[in-house]
Every structure is written in C-alpha cells, then in structure tokens.
C-alpha cells in the first residue's frame, strides 16, 4: 500500500506525528483532525464502458477513525445479534452483514442523506449507516415497540425515510426496480440526488433487474446499481448461478466498475465517482467484491458450501476493520491501545443497548390493526375469529 503525506503549512500537520492521547480531553478518542491524507486503494478499479477513477483516495484522520468506530460498531452489533438469535430473542430470519461493513461505511462517506439507499434483507448495517440507532435495530429484531418499524417489520424490514433509506426487502431482486423508481422520482423532482440500489450476486440474475436497468438507461435515471458480490447466493457459489459472474459488465451498454468491497476507501471513491456519473449520464453498476463471514442467514452454518480455510483466509488477508486499523496505526493517528479502547467502548454500547432493548415492551394488541392503510376509511378488519376480534381501521 503506497502512502503519501500532503505537505501542509498549517500547524495541524505536526499533530499527525504526535501521539493523539496527549491532546484528547474527551472520553472518546475520535480525532477531529481533517488534514487531508492520500491513500491508495488495495487494487486498482476495473472498468467497463467507462474510465476508472484514480486509485488515490483523499481521506483524513477524522474520517479514518470514524470508519474504524462505525465498522467496529457494526461488527459487534451483528455478532451480538447472532447470540441473541441463538438465545431465541430474535425469531424468523436474521441475515448478518459482518465482513461487508466497508460497503456500508464507504458509501455513506461519499454521499448525503438526501441521496437514497435501498437494499435487500441484509440491511442492519446499512440502516445504521443511514443514521439508524442501535436501539432501533435490536428492538426491531426482538419485535419490540422501540424498533424502527415498531416491531411490525422484523429483520428484513428496516426503514428510515427521513434519511432516505427505503428498506429492507425480502423478495430477492425486487429492490432494484424500486430503487430505479426512487431515482426516477429524484429526477422528476429535480433534486440533483441519486439512488443506490444494492443487491447480491444471487439477485444479479433476476430479470426484473434488467428490465429496470433498460428503462433507467432509456430515461437517463440517476440510478446506481451496487452488486454486493459476496460470491454466494445462499448456498450457491457465483460460478454455479451465473454464466458470466463479471457482474460489473452485465449491464452491457451500462458502464460498470469493479471495486474491492473490503476497502472502505475504494468503496468511497467508487461511490463518489458513480454519483457524479449518474447525475450526468444515467445508470452505472458498481460491483463490490466483498465477503460475509456468517452463512446466508442464522439457519445456515455457512460452511457446507465453502471451506473454513476460505473464511479464515479472508479474515486474515482482507478484513475491512483490520485494514483501517493498520492504516490508522501506520499513520500514527491513534495507538493500538486507543483503538482497543474504542472497540471496548463499542462493545459496552452494544451490550447496554441490548439491555435497554429487552426492556422495550412488545406492541399493544391493538397495533395488529394499525398501518394496514395510510387512510383506513373506518372500515372493519377481523382477527382469526371474526366474531371475537374486530377492529375499525384508523
């Protein structure tokens, strides 16, 4: 990894060489230093029908430490969800994102909350990236009132409309046309913003994706299709599902970029490039080469279709949090001790939030009948025994 320092005449540049602990009065050692640092991505970008952006990414200590903390939080959250599921606090489906954190944080660093994101069911960390709270995540997973969908959605149905996060979708591939629809609406409203529609390598073969891509290209919609290629669609490896697993090329006439999805800075660079492209030229595909440590969901051990060596190999060589840790340490932005403290703090935050979430009550029975419609017109709805349970829809 080639590193370079930008020479700056400001006195701030001197701080980079001093250990941070001596200048930190706060309980959290997050640097507020925004002196630019240039870092090279792990691998160059591969492009299809366009010119790849530069490998040199501009970042700063604050951003790198924020990446570290956010990804550590996401990692700890997903691992805690694993335990909660095994303890039967979480029911049904639970699709975990650990390993893929760099995509969520890198994307957020390149865009604003006015840009839209829509994804499938592996949505816990994407929700956090959009500004969702840990409490909203854990409470929703456990089906409690404090959840982001008030307990009525579950793991696959997180939404945060006020920061333009549109879910959270259980039907594989459906989110892609929906995302192109968001882009349509952004263009119709002249908002100068874009939509990122995320999907997996499994969904990449869905017909509706190509239907939506065709329309997006015809109508020049600011839609960015992001294939989070973790190489397995449930238990099926990409080469068994796709004749051509070069997902960034599958758009044919639509340009594409292949990105190291384990490198948060590469993700940031690619998303920034994609946003500029989409606003001027219409749709573009980003393929994020990433990996999930867990199986497809909690009912999948994840080791029947891939070897444990492969999983531990990726953890050794490509873990996104480790990459940022190495970057922070080599630039002397924090000490190992300080980073460990951040991880401890994050762990405590997660544990405390889980305790808090467990105290949130389950929804009131009357909530069975709310939100069926935005405008219920006072019509009647029924429970299982309609002579016993009836309600008027608000």
């Amino acid at each position: 990894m080639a590193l370079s320092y930008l020479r700056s005449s400001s006195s701030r540049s001197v701080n980079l060489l001093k250990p941070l602990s001596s200048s930190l009065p706060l309980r959290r050692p997050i640097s507020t230093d925004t002196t630019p640092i240039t870092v090279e991505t792990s691998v160059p970008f591969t492009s299809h029908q366009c010119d790849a952006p530069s490998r040199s990414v501009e970042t700063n200590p604050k951003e790198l430490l924020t990446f570290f903390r956010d990804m550590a939080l996401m990692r700890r959250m997903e691992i805690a969800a694993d335990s909660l599921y095994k303890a039967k606090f979480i029911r049904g489906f639970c699709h975990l994102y650990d390993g893929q954190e760099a995509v969520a944080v890198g994307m957020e660093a390149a865009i604003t909350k006015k840009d839209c994101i829509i994804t499938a069911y592996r949505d816990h960390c994407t929700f956090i990236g959009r500004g969702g709270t840990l409490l909203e995540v854990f409470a929703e997973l456990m089906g409690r009132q404090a959840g982001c969908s008030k307990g009525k959605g579950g793991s696959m149905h997180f939404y945060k409309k006020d920061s333009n996060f549109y879910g959270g979708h259980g039907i594989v591939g459906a989110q892609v046309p929906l995302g192109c629809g968001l882009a349509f609406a952004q263009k119709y409203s002249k908002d100068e913003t874009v939509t990122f529609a995320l999907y997996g390598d499994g969904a990449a073969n869905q017909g509706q994706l190509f239907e939506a891509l065709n329309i997006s290209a015809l109508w020049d919609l600011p839609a960015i299709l992001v294939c989070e290629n973790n190489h397995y669609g449930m238990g099926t490896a990409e080469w068994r599902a796709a004749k051509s697993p070069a997902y960034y090329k599958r758009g044919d006439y639509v340009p594409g970029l292949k990105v190291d999805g384990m490198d948060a800075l590469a993700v940031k660079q690619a998303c920034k490039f994609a946003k500029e492209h989409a606003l001027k030229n219409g749709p573009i595909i980003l393929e994020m080469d990433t990996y999930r440590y867990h199986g497809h969901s909690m009912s999948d051990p994840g080791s029947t279709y891939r070897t444990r060596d492969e999983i531990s190999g990726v953890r050794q060589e490509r873990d996104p949090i480790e990459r940022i840790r190495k970057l922070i340490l080599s630039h002397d932005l924090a000490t190992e001790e300080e980073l460990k403290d951040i991880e401890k703090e994050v762990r405590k935050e997660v544990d405390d939030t889980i305790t808090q979430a467990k105290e949130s009550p389950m929804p009131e029975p009357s909530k069975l009948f709310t939100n069926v419609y935005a405008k219920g017109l006072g019509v009647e709805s029924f429970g299982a025994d309609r002579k016993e349970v009836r309600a008027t829809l608000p």
Partner: protein
Amino acid sequence: MLGIARQKMLEQSSKKIRPAVSMLRNYSSAAKEMTVRTALNSALDEEMSADSKVFLMGEEVGEYQGAYKITKGLLDKYGPERVLDTPITEAGFTGIAVGAAYYGLKPVVEFMTFNFSMQAIDHIINSAAKSNYMSAGQISVPIVFRGPNGAAAGVGAQHSQCYAAWYATCPGLKVLTPYNSEDARGLLKAAIRDPDPVVFLENELLYGESFPISDEVLDSSFCLPIGKAKIERKGKHVTIAAYSKMVGYSLKAAEILEKDGIDAEVINLRSIRPLDRSTINDSVRKTNRLVTVEEAFPQHGVGAEICACVVEESFAYLDAPVERIAGADVPMPYAANLERMAVPQVEDIVRAAKRACYRSVP
C-alpha cells in the same frame, strides 16, 4: 424523438384546465351523457392538472394515445415527463412506479389488461400493499394500478381473467370496480387522491358505453367515497349484488323480473376492498334473499365472500340459500357459442333470482 418535439411545443403553449363539459358538445344539451372512456380520460386529466406529482406510466399510454384510448390527448397536454411510454416489461416498470410512490410521487400505472399484471404482482402485493404496515406507517404508497379486467370478446383464455378476488384478498390494497361513467370519474379521482395503493379494475366492453351524467359529476372536485356500494335500483323481494359489467346485466334482469312480479334490488358494489358489508347486509335484511353476480371464476370469488359475510351477519334474515352466478369454471374458450356459455347472461341472473324467490316457506 417525437416526444421531445412535443415537449418543446408544450413549453411554449399555456396549459388550461379544460372542463369535461366541452367534450359533450356532440351530445344534446337536454340530457348530458358521457362514455366511460371519456369519464376516465377526464378524471385523469383533471387530477394531473390539479397535482403535479401525478404522472402516468404504461405501454402505449403516450404516443399511441392509449391502447384503448383512455389516455388520449394527455401526452400532448402534459408532456413526456408526465406521460411515459414503457417497454413491455411489467415487472420492471411496476417496480419503478412503486419506487417513485415510495419517494412521494403519485403514479398511475396502466396495465394493458390485468392479465399482464400477473407479471408484476409481486410488486403490487409485496412492494406496494404491505409497505405501510411493515414500516409502521413510514412508507405509504400512493399509487393507482388501472386497466381493463375480466372478459372482453373473443380474446381467449389468457386475456379474459377477472382479478378482483385475487387483489381483494390482500390487506393493504384497495380494489375498485366502476360500472358507469359516474363511477368511473368519481372512483378514479378518489383512487388518485387516496394515499394507499389502489387496484382500479375497468372493463373493456364498458369503455364505449354511454351513461347519463349530472352536473355534480362533471365538477372537477367530484369524488366518490371508497368502500361504499350504491343501490342502483331499489327493490323488496330479492337482492342482486354485482360489480362492473354485471351491474348492467343485473339491471336488465331486474326489468325482466318485474314483469313476473319480483321486485329486485340491485347493488352496484363499486368497491371490492373494502367491501361494503353493511349495505349488502341491510339490503338482505330487507329482502331476505340474495343473488351474487360476477364474471370471474367462481371458486374463492367475490360472491363466496359476500355469501359468507351474509351468513355470518344476517343468517336469521335469509329465507333462501344464497345464489351465486359466476363465470364458468373453465379457461375462457374462443368459439362464440362456448364463450357465451362461459360468461353469465341475463337469463342466468333471472333464473337464480327466481330460484331464490320460490324457496320461500309459506
């Protein structure tokens, strides 16, 4: 290309709200009449004029002026940014429309017939109908899916199915079935203004039919309530509940029954979901006999739901078993004689009403 030229012309001309009355210049000034087609077109026009978030999407809705000419003139008036011709990709464009509704726009999606909506049914049910509930009210979906539904004439098995019962099963959707021009105008305007996903089932054979229309209906603010049926004909001996084209058949059946001394009450359901159970039950409590009429396949249909509802709520008032008239339980045949047998005819409704009446206990 043509669309861009039109857009430029549009920018130069000023837009006016054209009252629907101007379309009636060809009719006598004594009794105002309007075809269902014109009623739908005028409703779309007025709602697009009133709210810039409303836009149309579908196959041939723009330059072709609509496969059934329902959207005639709207591309010229509102331009290609608001009247969008789509490729023949229902799953894709329906998903796009639902996504636009998530963002806050108000799409009106046309299916050339509802048979093709099956290609997009996942988006109608899972992306549109359920979103408000799953998000606990964060994501409402103010979308209308409209188009011809049910049997036409000679179009065969794949182009003749009625989807009222299919869509009406799903909580989160509203399903409307206009019969005459007043229904068409009032219900379509209500559907477009409604913040929930509405499935608006028209009928191809009714498009060209003309109905009398009052000044109130012509007003641009005219709206009909969703979820309320209409008593088209008051009666006291038997209730006939129907929707869409079968309302017309039921009214004809009522005229024939009158000659035999049977005074039938005909209910135009207008809304399949929500179903106006109280109007149906009030009527049955008055007449004590019920015939349900639909063009659709009989099993698990609208008639079955109405029958169950009446048995549950008004059992003591029934003097005869509920009669059900429906399409034949076969895919729609092509040969004219077989097709006639596959769809309810007026004489079927008359016969069922007589059966319901002669079962009385003296």
